[in-house]
């Protein structure tokens, strides 16, 4: 198993990350290490073993359907880079 520069570029693009050439190379090496490490699993026959979706052996945690206003609008907009008192303002999405 080896990770290519091409794959790193694609994943970075999907994650909206920008790497310099050096970073890209470093990232390729590190990802390759990780994938090779996980690749060890292929030595075992895991057919018939259901994929683990959660590390804890816990299921069905839910809460009753009750409303609680934990923050108001002012607090919600407080941390926004840009807001107009009612709405979050973001760079225009469509032309």
């Amino acid at each position, binding site marked *: 198993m080896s990770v290519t520069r091409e794959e790193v570029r694609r994943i970075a693009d*999907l994650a*909206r990350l920008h790497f310099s050439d050096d970073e890209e190379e470093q990232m390729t090496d590190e990802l390759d290490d990780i994938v090779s490490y996980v690749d060890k699993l292929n030595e075992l026959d895991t057919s018939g073993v259901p*994929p683990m*979706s*959660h*590390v*804890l052996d*816990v*299921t*069905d*945690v*839910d*809460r*009753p*359907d*009750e*409303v*609680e*206003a*934990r*923050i*108001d*609008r002012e607090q*919600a*907009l407080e*941390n926004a880079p*840009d807001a*107009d008192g*009612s*709405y*979050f*303002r*973001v*760079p*225009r*999405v*469509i*032309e």
Partner: protein
Amino acid sequence: MPYDAYEPVIGLEVHVQLDTESKIFSPDSTAFGADPNAQVDPVSLGHPGTLPVLNGRAVHHALRLGVATHAKISRRSVFARKHYFYPDLPKGYQISQYDTPICYDGYVEIEREDAPSSPDEEAGDDADPTRGASLKRVGLTRIHLEEDAGKSIHPEADAASLIDYNRCGVPLVEIVTEPDLRSPHEAYQFLEKLRQIVRYLQVSDGNMEEGSLRCDANVSVRPRGHSDFGTRTELKNLNSMRHVEDALAYEITRQIAARERGASVSQQTLLWDPDAGVTRPMRTKEEAHDYRYFPDPDLVPITVDEDRLDAVRASLPEMPDARRRRFIEDVGLPPYDAGVLTEEREVADYFEETLQQVFKRTKGGDTQAQAKAVSNHIMTDVLRVLNEDDRSVDDLPVTPERLAQLVYLRLQDRVSSSAGQEVFERMMEEPEKSAGKIADEYDLIQVSDRDAIESVVASVVDENEEKVRTYLDGKEGLLGFFIGQVMQRFDGSPNPKLVRELLNEHLERRRAEA
């Protein structure tokens, strides 16, 4: 090839907003119409370090919908993160379900339009003896739980887009159908049926205009008789049932025309423009989607064992098809009445409550006629008022108890059918008065006292010797004159049926004497 030589193949993706007080993973309110960003929470805003906690009622709703649509229920299902970047999705991923939808392999039945036209469409034929036409099963591939995104607006005069996160985190189910629909009208019927089901279950108000029910459609055409699919397009911006039907009809014609020209249909997403009545390619650049789904480590699996499933089954109301069948077979209503009365659960409840109240008064007799009398009043008076005033049957001043009083008056022939309508109108205005009191006060009780009517009939016949002779000579149109005379002279409203009957009797007696 003519239009008919092609067969459309349609599949729908429907998002239904679940009726809960709070959001699916946080306790902020879901109420419609609040000020922008007034109903948000650190979780729905995707603040770092916050953790989602699942709303139990949303799961219950999804399970109820699954059971009601004959779906299989996943014993164990997990949430997955679906990654994409858009400002209305603050976390950068939507919590959804991927390879383990909570329900799968269900179906909804609609009325079949015509005979199966291709071999792959024969599954699920099931004749309903009470409906005449056969039913068609529309397969549901999956029903999964997910969270809604926020809403963005793009004001003309602003260089920015504005985001309102109130809707962010509102619980949804996404329902994906098999490509089983064969015409725009079938798609319409399916949506109407689905809407009826979610409303009966009270899992959603199913309001398309307010966005509680949203629909995208995939459509392709193929030469009739072929079993492979043509290239499909995806239609968006279908904001009403009518839009769905219109957009599909337009798009099918467009695809057929393209094929007839020898051009190809390209796979793309199109927006329906209801004003121009055309579909247009979406302006955003089409990038191949790679959502990088993976199980969300912040949420634990949902498991459903037999006990939980039993509890869900026990919580289901009688569904519309079963209820309609019962109204026909057990209650004895004509199929048309049964269909109208079961369209909305509240109206069907209102009918049944009224009928029980009528039974209390009649204590037996022709129950089928009694049911029909209740049905007539609901279909002519109650539904008319509901439509005119756009109100719910639950806050009608004429309660089932009061409507039963009126129906009972009619069944006893104490008010005529036109007087019955007047009583109903006045009952709407005067909610504190019983039907009997209103009929009394406004002099609408019809007299069925045979002797009282007969004495007036006798005197009218006696006092109009000449007219009687003309009548007996063959001018039978004069009967109307006699009826009018009796009605006029009578103190009160005589039962017209009785007046006619007695007049006939007396006039014929004269004939015998002559």
